[in-house]
């Protein structure tokens, strides 16, 4: 097994080496990079091309701003049988949603399980607004998740992994280190052992989740972390789990713990 993996790695190196790939410039001492580094953790921002970083930094030109605006409009729009909006209970998002996005996924007493921000929003819709929950990856859910999480921009990711969250966290950790799919790879093979190296022309990042939901140029739209995870699974030729599934929420919790200390960057722009 080990030799075949080395052979595979050698193949990747040979392919990447011949392309004389120039990495995006990254200087750890650059003060502009400081907000995107925490200890030895590096946000995906530091692996992105300068043009992509510039797109993220410009509040107007960041294409995710289109979803932020939609989310902002939905925040005050009454919906459901209760004819309430998010703002009926929570008031101004700028004040009251600060620090909310940075602590999810989180154990919720009412749900009796660990839920992520998308599920929390839908829980609110069902319980307090008597509205139908939004479909995972639907435009309004993406817009609202981004709008809420953006209020924590600049705050460090901080998730609770003890107490009732322990077993969910352990599930997520197991998922991360478990080989899967036809390529027989685990998350860790790319994002722990080989970040900074290339898979063909792709520069592998540490797989930090602090920028999600993210505008991905490949998708030409905003997308959730779960969509990215499903994409990762497909790339290693594994069967992806449904978006919003137990497996992905647990993994999201584990990944948030790995990104702990990095600042929430939502909405980020990535290739």
């Amino acid at each position: 097994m080990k030799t075949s993996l080395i052979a595979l790695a050698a193949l990747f190196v040979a392919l990447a080496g011949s392309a004389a790939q120039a990495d995006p410039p990254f200087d750890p001492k650059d003060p502009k990079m400081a907000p995107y580094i925490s200890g030895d953790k590096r946000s995906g921002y530091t692996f992105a091309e300068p043009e992509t970083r510039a797109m993220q930094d410009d509040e107007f030109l960041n294409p995710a701003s289109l979803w932020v605006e939609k989310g902002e409009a939905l925040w005050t729009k009454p919906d459901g049988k209760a004819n309430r909006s998010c703002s009926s209970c929570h008031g101004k998002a700028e004040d009251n949603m600060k620090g909310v996005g940075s602590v999810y996924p989180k154990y919720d007493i009412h749900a009796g399980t660990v839920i992520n921000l998308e599920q929390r929003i839908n829980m609110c819709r069902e319980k307090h607004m008597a509205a139908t929950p939004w479909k995972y990856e639907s435009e309004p859910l993406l817009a609202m998740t981004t709008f809420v999480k953006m209020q924590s921009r600049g705050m460090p990711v901080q998730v609770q992994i003890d107490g009732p969250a322990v077993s969910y966290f352990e599930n997520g950790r197991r998922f991360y280190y478990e080989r899967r799919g036809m390529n027989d790879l685990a998350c860790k093979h790319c994002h722990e052992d080989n970040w900074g190296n290339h898979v063909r022309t792709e520069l592998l990042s540490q797989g930090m989740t602090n920028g999600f939901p993210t505008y991905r140029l490949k998708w030409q739209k905003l997308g959730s972390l779960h969509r990215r995870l499903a994409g990762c699974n497909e790339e290693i030729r594994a069967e992806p789990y449904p978006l919003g599934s137990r497996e992905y929420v647990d993994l999201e919790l584990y990944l948030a713990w790995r990104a702990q200390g990095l600042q929430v960057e939502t909405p980020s722009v990535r290739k």
Partner: protein
Amino acid sequence: MPTPKVKFNETAAKGEILEIKTMIDHDMESGQRKDKDGKLIPRKIVNKFICTLNGKELFHAEMHGAVSANPATNFFITATESGTMEFKWFDDDGSVYAISRQLTVN
């Protein structure tokens, strides 16, 4: 319904160079992709963008199939006169998305 947005300094000194930033949320369906049944999804893009000041054209751009979704068009103008700036995006299906702003030049 795509909603365009525009940003620039709406009050400027005469002769000042202004950067105009625009963006519209649009899928820019290229006409190259296929749906689940293998049928081509018809092309539907914004094919033209025009900016006018008091009816006179300041800037125009023609767009084709390879332009990304949510196209951003940035350009520079020299502030010469006050008036109404109109921004128009023309869709393949005939719709026109428009937005206008007042420019004041002192």
